[in-house]
Protein backbone atom coordinates (compact mmCIF):
# COMPACT_ATOMS: atom_id res chain seq x y z
CA UNK A 1 0.00 0.00 0.00
CA UNK A 2 2.69 2.46 1.02
CA UNK A 3 4.75 1.81 -2.11
CA UNK A 4 1.99 3.02 -4.39
CA UNK A 5 1.27 5.93 -2.11
CA UNK A 6 4.84 7.12 -2.32
CA UNK A 7 4.59 7.37 -6.08
CA UNK A 8 1.79 9.87 -5.72
CA UNK A 9 -1.67 9.90 -7.21
CA UNK A 10 -2.95 9.27 -10.74
CA UNK A 11 -1.90 11.08 -13.93
CA UNK A 12 -5.05 13.22 -13.88
CA UNK A 13 -4.32 14.51 -10.40
CA UNK A 14 -0.68 15.18 -11.26
CA UNK A 15 -1.55 17.13 -14.41
CA UNK A 16 -4.15 19.26 -12.64
CA UNK A 17 -1.71 19.84 -9.79
CA UNK A 18 0.96 21.05 -12.20
CA UNK A 19 -1.49 23.65 -13.50
CA UNK A 20 -2.96 24.78 -10.20
CA UNK A 21 -0.16 24.66 -7.66
CA UNK A 22 1.59 27.75 -9.02
CA UNK A 23 -1.61 29.73 -8.98
CA UNK A 24 -2.33 28.74 -5.38
CA UNK A 25 1.19 29.81 -4.37
CA UNK A 26 0.80 33.11 -6.24
CA UNK A 27 -2.57 33.77 -4.60
CA UNK A 28 -1.02 33.16 -1.19
CA UNK A 29 1.77 35.62 -1.93
CA UNK A 30 -0.81 38.17 -3.11
CA UNK A 31 -2.83 37.75 0.08
CA UNK A 32 0.29 38.32 2.18
CA UNK A 33 1.57 41.27 0.19
CA UNK A 34 -1.79 43.06 0.20
CA UNK A 35 -2.60 42.19 3.81
CA UNK A 36 -2.62 45.85 4.86
CA UNK A 37 -4.82 46.93 1.93
CA UNK A 38 -7.48 44.27 1.51
CA UNK A 39 -8.90 41.34 3.50
CA UNK A 40 -6.34 38.68 4.21
CA UNK A 41 -2.99 39.07 5.88
CA UNK A 42 -0.07 37.04 7.04
CA UNK A 43 -1.99 34.27 8.73
CA UNK A 44 -4.38 33.42 5.89
CA UNK A 45 -1.73 33.93 3.21
CA UNK A 46 0.76 31.77 5.06
CA UNK A 47 -1.78 28.98 5.32
CA UNK A 48 -2.51 29.24 1.58
CA UNK A 49 1.20 28.99 0.78
CA UNK A 50 1.48 25.97 3.08
CA UNK A 51 -1.56 24.49 1.29
CA UNK A 52 0.19 24.77 -2.08
CA UNK A 53 3.09 22.71 -0.72
CA UNK A 54 0.68 20.25 0.88
CA UNK A 55 -1.06 19.97 -2.48
CA UNK A 56 2.28 19.10 -4.06
CA UNK A 57 2.98 16.49 -1.39
CA UNK A 58 -0.41 14.83 -1.77
CA UNK A 59 -0.22 14.65 -5.57
CA UNK A 60 3.42 13.71 -6.15
CA UNK A 61 4.34 11.85 -3.02
CA UNK A 62 6.74 12.72 -0.31
CA UNK A 63 9.99 12.54 -2.29
CA UNK A 64 9.11 15.42 -4.62
CA UNK A 65 7.87 17.58 -1.77
CA UNK A 66 10.95 16.78 0.25
CA UNK A 67 13.07 18.03 -2.63
CA UNK A 68 11.03 21.22 -2.88
CA UNK A 69 11.11 22.01 0.84
CA UNK A 70 12.53 19.61 3.37
CA UNK A 71 11.34 19.33 6.92
CA UNK A 72 14.43 20.88 8.46
CA UNK A 73 14.32 23.82 6.03
CA UNK A 74 10.71 24.55 6.82
CA UNK A 75 11.40 24.27 10.54
CA UNK A 76 14.24 26.76 10.02
CA UNK A 77 11.93 29.12 8.09
CA UNK A 78 9.42 28.98 10.92
CA UNK A 79 12.04 30.06 13.44
CA UNK A 80 13.21 32.81 11.08
CA UNK A 81 9.64 34.12 10.87
CA UNK A 82 9.24 34.13 14.64
CA UNK A 83 12.55 35.90 15.13
CA UNK A 84 11.74 38.45 12.41
CA UNK A 85 8.47 39.32 14.12
CA UNK A 86 10.29 39.71 17.43
CA UNK A 87 12.97 41.86 15.76
CA UNK A 88 10.29 44.19 14.37
CA UNK A 89 8.81 44.61 17.83
CA UNK A 90 12.23 45.17 19.39
CA UNK A 91 13.08 47.64 16.61
CA UNK A 92 10.17 49.76 17.81
CA UNK A 93 11.62 49.55 21.29
CA UNK A 94 15.05 50.67 20.06
CA UNK A 95 13.88 53.50 17.81
CA UNK A 96 11.05 55.05 19.76
CA UNK A 97 11.20 53.44 23.17
CA UNK A 98 7.85 51.68 22.76
CA UNK A 99 7.44 47.95 22.19
CA UNK A 100 5.80 47.33 18.78
CA UNK A 101 6.11 50.98 17.73
CA UNK A 102 5.31 51.46 14.04
CA UNK A 103 8.61 53.17 13.37
CA UNK A 104 8.73 53.18 9.56
CA UNK A 105 7.26 56.06 7.51
CA UNK A 106 3.56 55.54 6.93
CA UNK A 107 3.57 56.28 3.22
CA UNK A 108 0.50 56.95 1.16
CA UNK A 109 -2.72 55.08 1.75
CA UNK A 110 -3.71 52.37 -0.77
CA UNK A 111 -0.10 51.99 -1.92
CA UNK A 112 1.72 48.68 -1.71
CA UNK A 113 4.62 50.12 0.27
CA UNK A 114 2.74 51.90 3.01
CA UNK A 115 1.64 51.38 6.59
CA UNK A 116 5.12 51.21 8.10
CA UNK A 117 6.01 47.91 9.70
CA UNK A 118 2.66 46.20 9.05
CA UNK A 119 3.66 44.57 5.71
CA UNK A 120 6.91 43.38 7.30
CA UNK A 121 4.98 41.88 10.20
CA UNK A 122 2.66 40.22 7.70
CA UNK A 123 5.67 38.68 5.98
CA UNK A 124 7.08 37.41 9.28
CA UNK A 125 3.76 35.89 10.31
CA UNK A 126 3.36 34.35 6.85
CA UNK A 127 6.75 32.62 7.18
CA UNK A 128 5.91 31.50 10.67
CA UNK A 129 2.43 30.16 10.01
CA UNK A 130 3.09 28.66 6.59
CA UNK A 131 6.33 26.93 7.51
CA UNK A 132 4.94 25.83 10.86
CA UNK A 133 1.85 24.19 9.38
CA UNK A 134 3.85 22.54 6.62
CA UNK A 135 6.31 21.20 9.20
CA UNK A 136 3.43 19.68 11.17
CA UNK A 137 2.02 18.17 7.98
CA UNK A 138 5.39 16.67 6.98
CA UNK A 139 5.93 15.30 10.47
CA UNK A 140 2.56 13.56 10.36
CA UNK A 141 3.15 12.29 6.81
CA UNK A 142 6.44 10.73 7.88
CA UNK A 143 4.87 9.25 10.97
CA UNK A 144 3.95 5.60 10.59
CA UNK A 145 1.20 4.50 12.90
CA UNK A 146 1.91 0.90 13.67
CA UNK A 147 -1.11 -1.32 13.15
CA UNK A 148 -2.32 -2.92 16.31
CA UNK A 149 -3.30 -6.30 14.99
CA UNK A 150 -0.13 -6.90 13.04
CA UNK A 151 2.19 -8.29 15.66
Amino acid sequence: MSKEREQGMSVIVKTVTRLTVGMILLYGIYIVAHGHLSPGGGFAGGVIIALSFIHLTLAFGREVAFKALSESTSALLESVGALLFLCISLGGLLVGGVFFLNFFPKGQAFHLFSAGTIPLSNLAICLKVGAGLFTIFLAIVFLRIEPEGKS
Partner: protein
Amino acid sequence: MTILYILLVFMIVAAIVAVEIRDLLSSVIAVGAVGLGLSVAFLFLKAPDVALTQLVVEIVSVIILIRATLRKDIGLKTTGARFLSGLTALVFVAAIVLLAVFVFQDLPTFGAASTREIVASDRYIAEGETETGATNLVASVILDYRAYDTLGEATVLFTAVVGVLAVVRRVGRKSEPDMQGQEE
Protein backbone atom coordinates in the same frame (compact mmCIF):
# COMPACT_ATOMS: atom_id res chain seq x y z
CA MET B 1 -30.61 37.13 9.54
CA THR B 2 -32.59 33.98 8.73
CA ILE B 3 -29.65 32.51 6.85
CA LEU B 4 -27.52 32.82 9.97
CA TYR B 5 -29.98 30.75 11.96
CA ILE B 6 -30.09 28.14 9.19
CA LEU B 7 -26.29 28.02 9.26
CA LEU B 8 -26.31 27.79 13.04
CA VAL B 9 -28.69 24.80 12.99
CA PHE B 10 -26.56 23.18 10.28
CA MET B 11 -23.41 23.64 12.34
CA ILE B 12 -25.01 22.26 15.50
CA VAL B 13 -26.31 19.20 13.62
CA ALA B 14 -22.90 18.62 12.03
CA ALA B 15 -21.19 18.96 15.42
CA ILE B 16 -23.56 16.40 16.96
CA VAL B 17 -22.86 14.06 14.02
CA ALA B 18 -19.13 14.56 14.51
CA VAL B 19 -19.35 13.58 18.16
CA GLU B 20 -21.79 10.70 17.85
CA ILE B 21 -20.73 8.90 14.67
CA ARG B 22 -18.72 5.70 15.06
CA ASP B 23 -16.45 6.02 12.04
CA LEU B 24 -13.50 8.31 12.69
CA LEU B 25 -13.11 9.48 9.08
CA SER B 26 -16.78 10.49 8.85
CA SER B 27 -16.37 12.34 12.12
CA VAL B 28 -13.46 14.34 10.68
CA ILE B 29 -15.53 15.24 7.62
CA ALA B 30 -18.37 16.39 9.86
CA VAL B 31 -15.91 18.62 11.73
CA GLY B 32 -14.93 20.07 8.36
CA ALA B 33 -18.59 20.79 7.63
CA VAL B 34 -18.84 22.70 10.92
CA GLY B 35 -15.83 24.80 9.96
CA LEU B 36 -17.20 25.50 6.50
CA GLY B 37 -20.51 26.64 7.99
CA LEU B 38 -18.64 28.90 10.40
CA SER B 39 -16.69 30.41 7.51
CA VAL B 40 -19.89 31.21 5.59
CA ALA B 41 -21.39 32.68 8.77
CA PHE B 42 -18.38 34.99 9.12
CA LEU B 43 -18.89 36.05 5.53
CA PHE B 44 -22.51 36.98 6.21
CA LEU B 45 -21.43 38.89 9.32
CA LYS B 46 -19.17 41.01 7.08
CA ALA B 47 -15.86 39.72 8.40
CA PRO B 48 -13.98 38.64 5.25
CA ASP B 49 -10.61 38.48 7.00
CA VAL B 50 -11.82 35.98 9.56
CA ALA B 51 -13.81 34.05 6.94
CA LEU B 52 -10.73 33.63 4.73
CA THR B 53 -8.56 32.54 7.66
CA GLN B 54 -11.22 30.17 8.96
CA LEU B 55 -11.67 28.58 5.53
CA VAL B 56 -7.98 27.90 4.85
CA VAL B 57 -7.21 26.77 8.39
CA GLU B 58 -10.17 24.41 8.23
CA ILE B 59 -8.88 22.91 4.98
CA VAL B 60 -5.42 22.36 6.45
CA SER B 61 -6.73 20.87 9.66
CA VAL B 62 -9.10 18.52 7.83
CA ILE B 63 -6.22 17.32 5.61
CA ILE B 64 -4.00 16.74 8.64
CA LEU B 65 -6.79 15.01 10.56
CA ILE B 66 -7.64 12.77 7.61
CA ARG B 67 -3.98 11.84 7.33
CA ALA B 68 -3.86 11.10 11.03
CA THR B 69 -7.01 8.95 10.97
CA LEU B 70 -6.31 7.17 7.69
CA ARG B 71 -5.56 3.91 9.44
CA LYS B 72 -8.85 2.41 10.46
CA ASP B 73 -7.49 0.66 13.52
CA ILE B 74 -7.57 3.63 15.87
CA GLY B 75 -10.44 2.42 17.98
CA LEU B 76 -12.92 4.49 19.89
CA LYS B 77 -13.22 3.75 23.56
CA THR B 78 -16.81 3.36 24.60
CA THR B 79 -16.28 1.56 27.88
CA GLY B 80 -16.49 3.16 31.27
CA ALA B 81 -19.18 4.52 33.52
CA ARG B 82 -21.65 5.96 31.04
CA PHE B 83 -24.18 7.05 33.63
CA LEU B 84 -21.66 8.89 35.78
CA SER B 85 -19.95 10.66 32.88
CA GLY B 86 -23.32 11.61 31.42
CA LEU B 87 -24.40 13.04 34.74
CA THR B 88 -21.16 15.03 35.04
CA ALA B 89 -21.60 16.42 31.55
CA LEU B 90 -25.20 17.41 32.32
CA VAL B 91 -24.17 19.21 35.50
CA PHE B 92 -21.44 21.13 33.69
CA VAL B 93 -23.73 22.09 30.79
CA ALA B 94 -26.40 23.29 33.20
CA ALA B 95 -23.86 25.37 35.13
CA ILE B 96 -22.49 26.96 31.97
CA VAL B 97 -25.97 27.77 30.63
CA LEU B 98 -26.91 29.33 33.97
CA LEU B 99 -23.79 31.50 34.00
CA ALA B 100 -24.18 32.38 30.33
CA VAL B 101 -27.66 33.76 30.96
CA PHE B 102 -26.16 36.28 33.36
CA VAL B 103 -23.24 37.14 31.13
CA PHE B 104 -25.09 37.45 27.85
CA GLN B 105 -27.58 39.96 29.22
CA ASP B 106 -24.85 42.56 28.95
CA LEU B 107 -24.18 41.91 25.26
CA PRO B 108 -25.83 43.96 22.53
CA THR B 109 -28.39 42.14 20.38
CA PHE B 110 -26.97 39.81 17.79
CA GLY B 111 -25.71 41.59 14.70
CA ALA B 112 -26.57 45.06 15.97
CA ALA B 113 -24.02 47.76 16.63
CA SER B 114 -23.26 48.40 20.25
CA THR B 115 -25.23 51.18 21.85
CA ARG B 116 -22.62 51.77 24.49
CA GLU B 117 -19.55 53.81 24.02
CA ILE B 118 -16.57 51.55 23.42
CA VAL B 119 -13.61 53.90 23.48
CA ALA B 120 -10.97 51.67 21.92
CA SER B 121 -12.87 50.50 18.86
CA ASP B 122 -14.16 54.00 18.13
CA ARG B 123 -10.59 55.21 18.15
CA TYR B 124 -9.54 52.41 15.78
CA ILE B 125 -12.30 53.26 13.30
CA ALA B 126 -11.78 57.01 13.45
CA GLU B 127 -8.00 57.26 13.56
CA GLY B 128 -6.81 53.88 12.32
CA GLU B 129 -6.05 54.85 8.77
CA THR B 130 -4.14 58.04 9.54
CA GLU B 131 -2.26 56.60 12.50
CA THR B 132 -1.05 53.36 10.92
CA GLY B 133 -1.41 54.01 7.19
CA ALA B 134 -3.08 50.64 6.61
CA THR B 135 -6.38 50.74 4.76
CA ASN B 136 -7.32 47.29 6.04
CA LEU B 137 -8.39 48.18 9.57
CA VAL B 138 -8.14 44.57 10.73
CA ALA B 139 -4.45 44.56 9.82
CA SER B 140 -3.93 47.86 11.61
CA VAL B 141 -5.51 46.42 14.76
CA ILE B 142 -3.80 43.04 14.84
CA LEU B 143 -0.36 44.23 13.76
CA ASP B 144 -0.19 47.70 15.27
CA TYR B 145 -2.63 48.49 18.07
CA ARG B 146 -2.92 44.97 19.44
CA ALA B 147 0.34 43.49 18.21
CA TYR B 148 0.97 42.01 21.65
CA ASP B 149 -1.92 39.63 21.04
CA THR B 150 -0.45 38.62 17.71
CA LEU B 151 2.90 37.96 19.39
CA GLY B 152 1.12 35.74 21.89
CA GLU B 153 -0.72 33.94 19.10
CA ALA B 154 2.57 33.40 17.24
CA THR B 155 4.03 31.97 20.42
CA VAL B 156 1.09 29.58 20.74
CA LEU B 157 1.64 28.33 17.20
CA PHE B 158 5.37 28.00 17.75
CA THR B 159 4.76 25.95 20.89
CA ALA B 160 2.27 23.78 19.02
CA VAL B 161 4.79 23.05 16.25
CA VAL B 162 7.51 22.26 18.79
CA GLY B 163 5.11 19.98 20.65
CA VAL B 164 4.07 18.08 17.52
CA LEU B 165 7.67 17.64 16.41
CA ALA B 166 8.65 16.42 19.87
CA VAL B 167 5.84 13.84 19.89
CA VAL B 168 6.22 12.42 16.39
CA ARG B 169 9.98 12.69 15.91
CA ARG B 170 11.98 9.67 14.85
CA VAL B 171 15.07 10.21 16.99
CA GLY B 172 14.80 8.47 20.32
CA ARG B 173 11.92 6.23 19.36
CA LYS B 174 12.09 2.57 20.24
CA SER B 175 13.11 0.64 17.17
CA GLU B 176 11.19 -2.60 17.27
CA PRO B 177 12.05 -5.24 14.68
CA ASP B 178 8.66 -5.19 12.93
CA MET B 179 8.69 -1.39 12.76
CA GLN B 180 12.07 -1.42 11.06
CA GLY B 181 10.79 -3.86 8.51
CA GLN B 182 7.92 -1.52 7.86
CA GLU B 183 10.14 1.45 7.25
CA GLU B 184 11.91 -0.11 4.30
